[in-house]
């Protein structure tokens, strides 16, 4: 009896709602907030669909709390695909440790992080305290998107929670390490951006010639490691020559 109830409770149609997104996509929405447990359900659903490959599935786009499912209306329908997805079962994965933890070298402040001084002033902390807090947090890759290879990393410590800049920059250089609200992120390519830039990493996060094209995968852990200007320059040179191996906690990638 209890088992049957638990099985029903694990079904996707008991945990999510389906939202219409035109005639070739729909959203499977697990909640309305940013939460590691909810996000894990999204990525687990994406993985289940990648394995199951139901007829007419084109691709899925995971985000914080919902999965966008693209389908081909010439070979299936929203109704048929939702019935299939609704019957899949999810195990709770909340609290699970990240499969791997990346160590990302960052040169903080100065020209590399032009907003560090402002962030310190706005939060009432010293620049060193901001760096210690930012680098002392283990982040989770919630979502990749908006830009190719841009990863939303959370959660940022509450004391660093700031709204986005009132006037976004027209050009943010690639490798900029930034914060806004409860997230940190790294701009993989030059782009306009409204986040606060506190540092710079020489690593590359998006390479369309690679498969997969991004360094991070959903659910990965990320830790920022402060480096000085000399180490930053040395790593930048190694990256440019294709000689840098991204580091994982407990050994190289």
């Amino acid at each position, binding site marked *: 009896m209890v088992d049957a109830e638990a099985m029903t409770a694990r079904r996707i149609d008991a945990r999510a709602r389906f939202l219409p997104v*035109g005639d070739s996509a729909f959203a499977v929405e697990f909640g309305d907030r940013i939460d590691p447990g909810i996000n894990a359900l999204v990525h687990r659903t994406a993985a289940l669909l990648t394995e199951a490959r139901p007829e007419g599935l084109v691709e899925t786009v995971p*985000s914080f709390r919902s999965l966008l499912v693209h389908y081909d209306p010439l070979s299936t329908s929203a109704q048929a695909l939702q019935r299939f997805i609704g019957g899949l079962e999810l195990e709770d994965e909340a609290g699970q440790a990240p499969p791997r933890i990346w160590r990302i070298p960052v040169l903080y402040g100065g020209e590399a992080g032009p907003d560090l001084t402002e962030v310190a002033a706005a939060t009432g902390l010293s620049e060193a305290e901001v760096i210690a807090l930012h680098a002392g947090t283990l982040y989770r890759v919630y979502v990749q998107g*908006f830009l190719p290879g841009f990863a939303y990393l959370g959660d940022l410590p509450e004391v660093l929670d700031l709204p986005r800049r009132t006037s976004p920059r027209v050009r943010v250089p690639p490798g900029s390490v930034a914060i806004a609200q409860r997230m940190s992120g790294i701009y993989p390519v030059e782009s306009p951006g409204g986040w606060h830039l506190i540092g710079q990493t020489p690593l590359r996060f*998006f390479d369309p010639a690679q498969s*997969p094209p991004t360094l991070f995968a959903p659910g990965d852990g990320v830790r920022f490691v402060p480096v000085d200007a000399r180490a930053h320059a040395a790593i930048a040179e190694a990256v440019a020559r294709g000689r840098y191996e991204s580091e994982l906690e407990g050994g190289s990638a």
Partner: protein
Amino acid sequence: MTARLHILQPGPQTTVQDLGRHGFQAYGVPVCGALDGTALRLANALVGNEAGQAGLEIRLAGPAFEVVGGPARLALAGAQARIEVTLGDETRRYGAWRAIDVPEGAQVRVGALAGSGCAVLAFAGGVDTPPVLCSRSTDLKGRFGGHEGRALASGDRLLLGKGKAQGPCLELPSPPRVAGEVTLRAVPGPQADAFTDEAVAAFFATPYRISREADRMGMRLEGPPLAFRHGADIVSDGIATGAIQVPGSGLPILLLADHQTIGGYAKIATVISADLPLAGGLMPGGLVHFRAVTVAEGEEARRAREADIARLVASLVPVREGARIDEAALYQANLISGVVTALESS
């Protein structure tokens, strides 16, 4: 010996596009691809290619180029335009919706587009740029794919694929035309409930004007601002092509092929896939109406659209040169009449 194109004048924005880069949105990579996918498929059919081979997407006006290293067969679809082919001191004029055999050494000039803001110029064998993440589409923002990840510029050299032009040149006897005012069918959601009932009703009742801020990512629309129940911001979620997102200003933005993969504004409705090619051809200043349909109606409309395209492809016939009247005159007439088309009336 494969033919190449030497670009003399690129036009306002000419990019290499195919049917898009599918399967990488989870990494933040947008789909891109031709704004008017129907035009790409028809242009490819006219030159004997497979439906999804890469061609040149033209916006507003066409490029000028020289064909070198061999002859080329090409066809323009999606809009009308005058196509001049000059070899030595002889210039021949053609229109869209037919294949044209261009001899080696000839210069081709594609004029201003009429009837749509975008068109596709296909070449027998396709445009042979290196595929990136399984597609030749240009990602302008990501700066990869197509020709060096950017729009064409004067002096560029493009390789054409090896496919040989076979048989006589084909034409489409009754090409689709676009009306001045366009109605796009859209499914309410995914966040229609973020808006007041009056706002949703107004969105489907009032025409919107395409603003000057219109590119391959999206088009800002001008009209009555839409009121939110609480606010424009949502926890970012996935975006589909055709989504109509509404930022805090209340003015909707119709998102097109190059849209970002996720975003944090509420989306009031999503244009159905059957009508996306029409949306891609909208031009600044033009009016657009939105009509609400259900998901099932959208899926049915897509099947009907596919049947239309299959019928158009099956209708291709060899060009009847003898029966041809002045194509430029025809094209002027089309501009004036602008009636609803075979595609439109489906």
